[in-house]
């Protein structure tokens, strides 16, 4: 059992409420870094000093936050209205168990049972604003005493391993956090590595924007968990990425063209070390690379991701070999990164 992934995914840290995850990570890295601090937005920033062989300053980012819900109102019957914090496909929410507020009160996102559905309702999707979280309170007063408007709700999923596959919530992006922690536990790099465990990625890449501004590095690497979509399909179309085929390397997504020199450096490194990799299908989506790249006078940046099925649902799946290879590839990428890779003439 990978305890690091278990502990990180079972911790709760919905965007802008990342404290529990931050404290957990802080304790996991404190003995392996030279300095750390928490910035104004809540990003955990740590410096691992290099050997002095290279003058570079390199930022490695992984966001700590996960998608979740926020309580917006309590109904007369004691159930709670809520809104999404981050992006959801509404139909994945019905019937799921959530933990609400600092006390982690258990609730369920209620659904009208199939017996009571009219024919047309069976074929339509219930919208989030028609769903309620039910904590089993007998009335409004009882409910309000336990859960307050403005509190966060997160999914409840125990981490499990099914052979080489791991199931859990929030692999997006605790898988990236775990990889970054492993990078910090390794021996020093030729240059100073700044780690940012950033906040509020799921609501608009917000934490990394100020983290990158504060660190002002020469180059940046973002560690992510990217949606895999590799289930059976009749058409001859690419899976965007598939489980078990290795780290996923971004070239272009909806908001970023990755630095081509860094992408080439990463793919060369993978080939040289016999690490499998897949180019993520160019198109939609976006990572913290977008905001890091455009910080100040511009920062060369690229993304390596663990493929994850069923992203932004309570039950994600990753392949543990993919995860291990992301750690391996990220470490090899850093150790072989020289100023020449990103030099412009």
């Amino acid at each position, binding site marked *: 059992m990978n305890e690091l992934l278990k502990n990180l995914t079972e911790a709760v840290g919905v965007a802008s409420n990342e404290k529990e995850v931050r404290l957990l990570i802080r304790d996991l890295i404190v003995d392996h870094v030279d300095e750390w601090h928490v910035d104004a937005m809540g990003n955990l920033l740590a410096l691992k000093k290099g050997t002095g062989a290279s003058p570079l300053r390199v930022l490695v980012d992984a966001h700590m936050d996960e998608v979740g819900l926020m309580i917006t109102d309590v109904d007369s019957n004691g159930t709670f209205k809520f809104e999404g914090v981050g992006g959801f496909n509404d139909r994945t929410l019905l019937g799921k168990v959530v933990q609400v507020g600092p006390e982690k009160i258990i609730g369920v996102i209620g659904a009208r049972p199939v017996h009571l559905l009219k024919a047309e309702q069976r074929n339509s999707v219930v919208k989030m604003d028609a769903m309620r979280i039910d904590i089993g309170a007998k009335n409004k007063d009882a409910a309000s005493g336990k859960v307050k408007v403005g509190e966060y709700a997160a999914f409840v999923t125990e981490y499990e391993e099914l052979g080489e596959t791991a199931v859990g919530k929030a692999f997006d992006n605790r898988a990236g956090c775990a990889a970054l922690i492993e990078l910090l536990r390794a021996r020093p790099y030729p240059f100073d590595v700044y780690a940012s465990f950033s906040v509020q990625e799921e609501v608009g890449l917000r934490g990394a924007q100020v983290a990158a501004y504060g660190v002002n590095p020469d180059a940046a690497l973002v560690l992510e968990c990217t949606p895999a979509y590799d289930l059976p399909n009749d058409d001859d179309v690419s899976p965007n990425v598939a489980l078990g085929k290795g780290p996923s390397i971004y070239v*272009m997504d909806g*908001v970023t063209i990755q630095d*081509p020199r860094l992408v080439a450096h990463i793919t060369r490194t993978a080939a040289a070390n016999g690490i499998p990799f897949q180019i993520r*299908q160019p198109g939609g989506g976006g990572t913290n690379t977008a905001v890091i*790249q455009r910080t100040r006078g511009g920062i060369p940046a690229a993304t390596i991701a663990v493929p994850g099925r069923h992203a932004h649902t309570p039950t994600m799946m990753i392949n543990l070999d993919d995860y291990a290879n992301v750690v391996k590839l990220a470490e090899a990428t850093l150790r072989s990164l020289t100023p020449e890779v990103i030099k412009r003439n």
Partner: protein
Amino acid sequence: MNELIKKLVEAYGPSGFEDGMRDLIRPEVEAYADEIRVDALGNLIAIKNGDGSGLKVMIAAHMDEIGVMVTHVTKEGFLRFTNIGGVLPHNLMGSRVQFANGTIGLIYSDRIEDRGKIHPLNKFYIDVGASSPDDCPVSVGDAAGFVRPFMAQGSRLTAKTMDDRIGCVVAIEAMKRLKSTPHQVYFAFTVQEEVGVRGAMTAANHLDPDVGIALDVTLTGDVPEARPMAISLGKGAAIKVKDSGMIAHAGLVRLMKQRADAASIPYQLEVLDGGSTDARSMQIANAGTAAGCISIPCRYVHSQSETVDAGDVESCIQLLVEILANPIEL
């Protein structure tokens, strides 16, 4: 000048992959610049020193062009692709693209059932003459630009990438003609404009200019059933007042008009409903920049037959030189 235009408009340089463009432009400006820099994102910045009495002025013309990127190679060796910037499906049938390694591809779409409808982008494919992924010379993540030779017919100049290689030409020509300037002028040949005015943003953050002027194409209202717009080919440089991303600095617009009037340069005032330019990035960089744009009127923007008028191009060059050669008071 047509030789320079031809060289730039036929070159490869989709957003994010502008290395070749930079190598083309650099020798054109080297003799006229006091210093040349390339920044972290790849913007080429040619600096012309002033006499110390003027302002810091950034001129931005983007090197990148719209294009496509491979998302999938089918088992028969055809390529599915996504867009880089504003690629319009109805401009694609039968067009040709070129990859960085020289491979040429032909674009066509899946079977058309209804001639009144245009397929979405994911129903188009590129044929590079391959018969399987194994003999396909390009792979997922490779970028391509369109292919179309430059054409000069009378005063009308047509190419795949007037947007915005013609802006680069205006900048280069202005550099050549500008004998002296009171200003510290940064001629920035920017990257990644077509995907969200990204290069100009980091360049402006870094250079921190007082004044920013973008050089870019704008739409026209002078073709059959056009959306009404008071811009025509051949009626002079367009001085941007507003587009959907920026309201130009009023003092800068006034100054542009004054300079054009004083030098008898024909101009038109531009209000563009949709689209924006590097001026938007410059305007909101750091603590703000007095930003404006000199636009080259252009028909058929984002098609492979983008068409400008040589007289308008000349007016834009003259106007830029007049602005840079004299004091700027806002």
